[in-house]
């Protein structure tokens, strides 16, 4: 019984229908972090295009020049923010890696911020076969 309870708990990640961000919410979140609307630019998001399990998806963001900040956003997770990173002077490469959750197939957006205030963004489409949450 305990084992079944565990299996049910592990499987059932139920999302409330209203708990979903949108493209507009993501734009607002990006503007709040970057201070402006980023231009499309050179930014690499390394991530599997086809994800089997949305609970822990490895992702690496690599900028082509020195930056002071990097961030990831999603339009269709419950919240648009994923992670905001600030890089100090001792950082050797303008990149970071993490593992994120994906509630459904969507376009992930990464934004970079340079020391002079410029910011730019890039996106990648990801297909999720087993989402981190049951789709509403």
């Amino acid at each position, binding site marked *: 019984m305990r084992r079944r309870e565990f299996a049910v708990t592990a499987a*059932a990640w139920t999302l409330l229908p209203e708990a979903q961000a949108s493209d507009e919410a993501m734009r607002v979140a990006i503007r709040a972090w970057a201070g402006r609307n980023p231009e499309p630019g050179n930014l690499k998001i390394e991530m599997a295009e086809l994800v089997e399990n949305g609970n822990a998806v490895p992702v690496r963001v690599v900028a082509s020049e020195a930056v002071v900040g990097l961030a*990831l956003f999603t339009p269709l*997770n419950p919240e648009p923010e994923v992670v905001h990173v600030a890089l*100090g002077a001792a950082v*050797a490469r303008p990149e970071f*890696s993490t593992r994120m*959750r994906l509630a459904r197939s969507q376009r992930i957006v990464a934004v970079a911020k340079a020391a002079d205030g410029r910011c730019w963004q890039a996106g990648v489409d990801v297909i999720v076969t087993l989402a981190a949450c049951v789709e509403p």
Partner: protein
Amino acid sequence: MATRAVITLPAAIKPGEAFEVRVTAAHAMETGYRSSDEGARLPRDLVRRFECRLDGEPIFTADLFAAISANPYLAFWMRADKPGELSLVWRGDNGFEHRETRTLNVT
């Protein structure tokens, strides 16, 4: 409950040479969107912030949100010119705080 954290650093570091720091902390990162078997909402319990400093100087800081997986993993590249102390701290909901320090073996 004592928190476990895994911090991966090279055993020996050359001055000025880039090396990767990989960190994982054991934490459920409960999003606040899940329900228990009984239908009650599981309260939000997240790690909100991670900071890595070298001798007090911030190197890598991250604000984490619900979309970061359980046992938050972060990796970045840094360089050091001389031996120093790397201090790492995770802070989160319900007063969560976990600190680790590592000595950088720069030779």
